[in-house]
């Protein structure tokens, strides 16, 4: 096909009766010459749909395994950098850390507060509806307090942070990678781990527990408002029920998970940023991946932790 077309083109360009002008003839000749050197790109041999399916499953499984290994390696690297920097106060990066605390903590406070307030109200409504049939409406207070202290406070905050902060970390570091800024840091003899990753990890380690505390408060207040308005449980009675029924251990069970989630969210966000390769499309793909991965990790760990605390009877 190509050969025939090329041959025709060449012949018509050189044909004595050709009525084309010189520029058109030059174009024909250019096409003819480039076709002469042109060869078909090598195609992968066709395989059946079944083999393709297996190959894709295999690739996906391998990718998950590689991602896990990389994440574990990266966590090790963060801890090593942290310990090495611990004894050199001159290398502590206070300013960027504080800036990141502001961005990840303070700036997220309104949305965390609003969201948990609303979820608290919804949980109280649910509890009121279900418990009314048992004549136990008053236990709505316990339901709201238990769920927010143990689970929802930290879980909702962590999921919000995964969507808001992990994506931001990936995009920030990823665009630096695409712009060769990470290479520039290395050639200046500096360590990107110390300069970029540690401040972000430390900032989230500080911000997430504080936000979790805020989320617990707002969730309980949301539940309290619903109790006051629709169940006739006055705020004073709400508080006294809280004091009577809820032990401090529930608050602690919720709060211990916060630093762990914070560390993992920050690690995933930064690592995905370093995986970016050059293009803007890659920044987008890895940002998505970091949000999905961190939400996944948070929920799985929370489920494991819930099981563990339940079995321990804490």
């Amino acid at each position: 096909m190509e050969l025939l077309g090329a041959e025709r083109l060449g012949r018509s360009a050189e044909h004595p009766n050709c009525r084309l002008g010189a520029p058109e003839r030059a174009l024909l000749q250019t096409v003819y010459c480039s076709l002469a050197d042109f060869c078909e790109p090598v195609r992968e041999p066709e395989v059946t749909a079944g083999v393709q399916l297996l190959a894709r499953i295999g690739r996906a499984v391998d990718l998950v395994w590689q991602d896990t290994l990389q994440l574990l390696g990266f966590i090790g690297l963060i801890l090593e950098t942290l310990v090495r920097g611990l004894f050199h106060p001159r290398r502590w990066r206070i300013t960027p850390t504080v800036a990141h605390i502001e961005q990840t903590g303070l700036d997220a406070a309104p949305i965390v507060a609003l969201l948990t307030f609303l979820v608290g109200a919804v949980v109280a409504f649910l509890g009121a509806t279900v418990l009314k049939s048992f004549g136990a409406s008053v236990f709505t207070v316990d339901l709201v307090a238990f769920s927010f202290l143990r689970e929802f406070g930290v879980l909702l905050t962590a999921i919000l942070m995964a969507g808001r902060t992990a994506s931001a970390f990936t995009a920030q570091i990823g665009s630096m990678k695409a712009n060769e800024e990470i290479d520039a840091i290395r050639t200046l003899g500096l360590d990107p781990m110390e300069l970029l990753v540690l401040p972000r990890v430390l900032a989230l380690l500080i911000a997430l527990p504080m936000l979790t505390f805020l989320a617990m408060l707002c969730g309980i207040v949301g539940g309290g408002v619903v109790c006051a308005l629709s169940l006739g449980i006055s705020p004073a009675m709400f508080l006294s029920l809280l004091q009577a029924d809820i032990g401090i251990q529930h608050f602690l069970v919720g709060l211990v998970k916060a630093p762990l989630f914070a560390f993992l969210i920050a690690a995933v966000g930064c690592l995905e940023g370093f995986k970016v390769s050059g293009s803007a499309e890659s920044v987008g793909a890895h940002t998505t991946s970091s949000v999905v991965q961190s939400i996944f990790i948070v929920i799985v760990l929370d489920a494991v932790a819930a099981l563990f605390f339940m079995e321990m009877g804490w």
Partner: protein
Amino acid sequence: MSRPSRAPGEAVIEVRGLCNRFGSQSVHENLDLDLYRGEILAVVGGSGSGKSVLLRSIVGLRKPSEGSVRVFGQDLRSLPEQARSQVERRFGVLFQKGALFSSLTVTENVALPLIEHAGLSRRDAEHLAAVKLALAGLPLSAANKYPASLSGGMIKRAALARALALDPDILFLDEPTAGLDPIGAAAFDQLILTLRDALGLSVFLVTHDLDTLYTITDRVAVLAQKHVLVADAIDRVAETEDPWIHEYFHGPRGRAASDAVTPHKEE
């Protein structure tokens, strides 16, 4: 040549038997190259011939698949991290797109390595940064701008100032004049020449700019067929029997650049 050719001094960079492979595709096979003290060496080659990969292997951003890179007589890869960082501080690297830190102003970009390594106070570092920026030919009005609001030429100059911040011994330039207007490019060439003569830098230059080749380089290394085909003074390189080299230096652009320099020769 317009300048007396320099006697080759000691080699500050020795690349021996370098191989770089990406999966099944190999970019370098058994590549040898030297950079002598105080010379300007240009590396040329077609697109995709691995010029930037070679630069990245030398400055330690890429681990070569095989072979050794010795800088000041030391193999960077075998050094402990602390010592490696010490050697790396003697490099100044100008990346193709500048790679300025986009969250810092131009002055802060140049001051960062000074604060980090030289332990200067912020005031002193920014003062010194202003000197380096002036040296690189950047107007003072640009000093407090962010990289996003600079033109391509200004970014190159700011990045050069950052590369010079720690008074490096070796300057690596990745296509320094690409994307500059002819006047800016000629001025940049002269700037590099002046800096080399004044500060005794050794310069490793990756370029496509034939004018740069003819005006400032001492030696030209041609990268083709996965290794260094020839590395010599430009006149002798241009005479080499090789179809690619012939087309490169004796094509219309090559002739124009060569003719532009020839009158100086006869002076």
